[in-house]
């Protein structure tokens, strides 16, 4: 057996993965550009669709004063944070929703014979093409609404918002990874992944509008509340749950760690170890 130089460990391993990620992203981007017209048209459609959603909130506030105790700029701020967090997850990591498909088709086997983490290969293996409109609009609305609520004056809060958006993306990632990993136990798990997909509309409005049971679910069971609502409270300086806002990065990390463990557990089951 030929001797190979050892694979890097520790920080060098991280550098190896980061470098590989750029190689994968390049491949994903080139694949999108194989169909340039489709790419442009789909993203314009996506932009209009999201414009309509933001427009609806604007229309509601032509007669309403507040929703769940939040005024127009605040509701739009929360909505924009959720758009940004969701679109970052969607653009970079949406392929985790294909785990069920990979299991059924046996594509997972291909990933297991490469000297890389299989989940890394799943998420890096495909860049989505049709959510740039949500990202762009989310950014614009966040800046405009952020100025209206007076966020621009405090660089610390701006930095917090950036961190909160990234944490929010991790929350989306955690929920969808957990939902997709049910594929290791169910032959057909599309009902679960679809439910997670549809439930994310709960994350876009202030949680105050839901009854207590729904709020508790969205906080501690399926933590969509931490995608935008809780972290926004620190930036907005309002709301009753500011102390929960600070927990956002922790909750996001914990949720993702839990989802990752669930995925590893499922993978172990797939490979026939343990259980």
């Amino acid at each position, binding site marked *: 057996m030929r001797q190979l130089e050892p694979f890097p460990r520790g920080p060098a391993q991280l550098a190896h993965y980061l470098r590989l990620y750029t190689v994968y992203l390049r*491949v994903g981007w080139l694949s999108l550009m*194989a169909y340039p017209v489709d790419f442009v048209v789909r993203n314009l459609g996506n932009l209009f669709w999201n414009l309509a959603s933001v427009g609806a909130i604007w229309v509601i506030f032509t007669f309403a004063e507040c929703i769940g105790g939040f005024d127009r700029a605040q509701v739009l701020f929360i909505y924009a944070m959720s758009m940004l967090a969701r679109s970052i997850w969607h653009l970079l990591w949406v392929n985790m929703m294909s785990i069920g498909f990979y299991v059924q088709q046996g594509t997972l086997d291909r990933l297991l014979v490469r000297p890389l983490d299989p989940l890394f290969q799943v998420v890096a293996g495909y860049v989505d093409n049709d959510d740039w409109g949500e990202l762009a609009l989310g950014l614009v609305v966040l800046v405009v609404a952020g100025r209206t609520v007076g966020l621009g004056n405090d660089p610390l809060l701006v930095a917090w918002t950036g961190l909160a958006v990234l944490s929010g993306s991790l929350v989306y990632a955690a929920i969808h990874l957990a939902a997709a990993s049910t594929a290791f136990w169910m032959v057909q798990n599309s009902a679960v992944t679809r439910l997670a997909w549809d439930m994310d509309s709960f994350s876009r409005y202030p949680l105050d509008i839901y009854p207590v049971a729904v709020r508790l679910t969205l906080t501690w069971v399926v933590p969509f509340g931490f995608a935008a609502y809780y972290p926004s409270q620190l930036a907005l300086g309002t709301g009753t749950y500011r102390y929960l806002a600070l927990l956002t990065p922790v909750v996001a990390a914990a949720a993702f760690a839990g989802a990752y463990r669930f995925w590893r557990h499922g993978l172990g089951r797939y490979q026939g170890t343990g259980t």
Partner: protein
Amino acid sequence: MPTIIAERLTKDYRIPRRGHGVGSYLRTLFTPSYREVRALDAVSFAIEPGETVGYIGLNGAGKSTTVKLLAGILAPTSGRVKVGGIDPHRERVTNARRIGLVFGQRSQLLWDLPVRETFHLLRHVYRVPPDRYHANTRRFFELLELDAVWDQPVRLLSLGQKMRCELAAAFLHDPSVVYLDEPTIGLDVLAKGAIREFLKEISQKTQVTVFLTTHDLRDIEEVCRRVILIHQGSLVYDRSPQELVQEYGQNARLEVAAAGDAVPTAPPGSRLEGRTGDRWVFTFDRQRVRVPELLAVLGQELSIRDVTVTGLDLESVVRRIYGGEAP
């Protein structure tokens, strides 16, 4: 020391028992009930470095399961597997760096992009040093004519061209062991020939160990020095392909369409296998008896309408072997 050691390798799959409907779906989530299916039963073999082994068997015999166990995709239920001295499942990443894999049905090529992009990606995945990368791609250009398709998107390639690319991709990082799962399935004669030539060349010039599953006896005859046959999860044959061919490969199959239902007696040197539709099926040894002689004898008994002669396919060979017939 052998490159691959399998000791009483056994794999059971747990198939969930479930009824229909959401209720039973949910119930099985919490109180699962399974039945066990044994896919591989105490299979043992050892493969030396540089050997080229054909692994054959019918569909569902356990071929793919074996490949998955050797490649570290699955963990065995019991028994032991070592590849290059390590447990391929426990040390999956270390093992993955030393092996190459072609799954006939599951491509690793980037569908929408030119062929070179796949190799560019793999070069980074396996950290192939620049000199090895250039030397290897040059060899693939030569032996597999990859230069002709290098800049073409994969989706525009023919099946044969795609398989050449798959093969090259599996060998790019100088693996010590290469597993090929049905690499010639569905290919035309020319493409099959090119792939066999490549495998012969590379197994002569390098120390690579090749583990090949196939349905095509010609793959085995031309490429392999050893054949392992499994049936219903058990190893039933482990010898050289020359022996296999001597014992079974000379056999041919004669189908005779004739009117009437009278059962003919098999001419000397042949065997009556049965009847499919209106055709009587015989097998015979080409070395011992020739078709005209057979027909002359049969013609006395039957009024022959039509005749087909074929070489025995792997399936019939396998059926004869596990049927317990001594050659």
